[in-house]
């Protein structure tokens, strides 16, 4: 078991290196000059050359990559071209904002998904199941940005109950636990939670229906367990898969959603990424992609480990 964990952890190193190389070079595939966006149109050749040298863009790409990696492992991702602030601090703030959004979306989505999934699975085949299942299908099919805009039209424009964009009054990007800030998170969180809710509903429904149809459930009833006693067995059997799916969904949300964050102007990683792309802010773009890529590598590792810990059939072998 321990050996397995160590091996899995060691795998992360080559994967991480490969991922960062891809992140770094992908950006160079895009046409255009990274500095053109920030330079005035009439900038002298001299100035351009000087800036290029400052940012290191005049060196061969492998050298740039080497330097970038060397600094990245020390936690330095360079300076944002657009804002002049370290990519690190831009990223850190965006990450914490995305986490806030993901926290609300998950709390809402997982609770709803688990409840709906259990109901549909328990009453598998009844009208209740059919209603829930159709809702779930609608949930995964509806486009994020469209739903986001519909919610904004209803709750912000029409009823004027909730703010449409941003995460605080006056374009603030600092989170606080009060209604002033909470009201900003509701619409993006609900929008973001729709897909995880639907996916978890479907997963849990299938799991519960499958478990309930197994012979051992009959055996549990046969030994005199109450519905509540059986419920606990169903939960424990469903838990590894349900948790893994929730973990993956949480991961996706923590990675930030470009579409939802852009629609709601929520200053998280997804928003940062879209800003970096549109402004061709190379260091910011590379740093953000690297963070997100490594994040998903670790996320998969974590999901694997949790699943292993929870399922005795994997644990002992």
């Amino acid at each position: 078991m321990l050996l397995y964990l160590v091996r899995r952890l060691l795998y992360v190193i080559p994967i991480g290196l490969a991922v960062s190389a891809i992140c770094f070079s992908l950006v160079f595939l895009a046409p255009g000059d990274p500095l053109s966006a920030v330079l005035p149109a009439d900038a002298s050749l001299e100035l351009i050359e000087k800036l290029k040298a400052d940012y290191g863009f005049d060196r061969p790409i492998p050298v740039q990559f080497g330097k970038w990696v060397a600094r990245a492992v020390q936690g330095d991702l360079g300076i944002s071209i657009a804002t002049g602030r370290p990519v690190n601090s831009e990223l850190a703030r965006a990450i914490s904002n995305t986490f806030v959004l993901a926290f609300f979306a998950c709390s809402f989505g997982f609770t709803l998904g688990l409840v709906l999934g259990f109901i549909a699975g328990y009453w598998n085949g009844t009208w209740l199941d059919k209603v829930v299942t159709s809702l779930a299908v609608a949930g995964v099919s509806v486009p994020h940005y469209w739903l986001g805009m519909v919610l904004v039209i209803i709750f912000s424009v029409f009823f004027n109950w909730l703010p449409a964009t941003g995460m605080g009054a006056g374009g603030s990007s600092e989170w606080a636990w009060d209604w002033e800030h909470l009201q900003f998170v509701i619409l993006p969180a609900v929008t973001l939670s729709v897909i995880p809710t639907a996916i978890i509903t479907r997963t849990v429904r299938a799991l519960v229906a499958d478990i309930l149809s197994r012979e051992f459930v009959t055996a549990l009833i046969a030994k005199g367990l109450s519905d509540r006693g059986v419920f606990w067995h169903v939960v424990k059997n469903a838990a590894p898969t349900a948790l893994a799916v929730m973990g993956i969904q949480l991961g996706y949300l923590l990675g930030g959603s470009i579409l939802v964050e852009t629609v709601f102007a929520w200053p998280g990683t997804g928003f940062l990424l879209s800003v970096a792309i549109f402004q061709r802010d190379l260091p910011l773009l590379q740093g953000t992609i690297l963070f997100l890529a490594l994040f998903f590598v670790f996320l998969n590792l974590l999901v694997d480990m949790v699943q292993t810990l929870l399922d005795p059939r994997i644990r002992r072998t």
Partner: protein
Amino acid sequence: MEPRAPDEPLVSVSDLTVRFSRTGQTIQAVNGVSFDLAPGEVLGVLGESGSGKSVTLRAMLRILPAHRSSVTGTIRVAGRDVLALSGAELEDYRGGTVSMIFQEPMLSFDPVFTIGQQIAESVRRHMKVDQQAARARALEMLDRVQIPSAKRRLDAYPHEMSGGMRQRAMIALALACKPKLLLADEPTTALDATVQIQILLLLRELQREFGMSVIFVTHDVGVAIEVADRIAVMYAGRIVETGSVREVIRTPRHPYTQGLLSSTVRGELRGQRIEAIPGSPPDLAAMPPGCAFAPRCKHARDECLRAVPGAVDVGGGHEARCVLLKLAA
């Protein structure tokens, strides 16, 4: 609990009928089964696949899917009207008064709980003891069913045991709360021949020690002879013949039983499957009005098709449902 006359049988099933409704069809799985069982008696139920053996046992434990099946008739066990039980009373009855061993032990244990947890769970439910006492009882039972290094096995998961071990553990689970009646649904069919014999011997030994009644369902005539005091032969959801093992085996009176026994070559009784009678059992969704065996019976005549033949007692509690017996009487 209602008072029980001293000579009342432990189990008294009368006119048990089970129907399943599925996509507009009604499957008549059990059609008027009646039998009594004395305390400590072992009834072997024989019959080919689909004859309603499992459904009968499941009806007795009330574990058929409630919304898709309808059960009528009466089932009395230890003085209780089983079909009238509900809620906590029903839960006390299941696993407390009557317990069941299933055919496939791998499928009948929850894969993510240890064997010890699953036995202890039942013990706590029925004996109202704490976790420690329940665990001790589980250990005692694993010892009792001769599982080697029982203490270690207590913390084993079902997939970590062999088929034979799991079936022993299933027996330990079923008997941990000292039921008065054990329902064994082909408990050895899924096992190797040598393991089968060990399990049969163990079951017989435990049955005597616990003094419980057993209903033992099997395909296997040899197994039935080995374990049972009495035999009931089922065909298309009816008991077509019943009597002491001796009577039924030596002088089978129903043509189906006769075919069944002659297809099982003497001296090679064990391990033989019932299949040598030509033809196949009737469609349970379209049961004929008369004797269900008629299409396969070489003695069939007009009156066989008119109504279901009544049970005729040929002496000493040996009964069969065949018009030939009425003619003889």
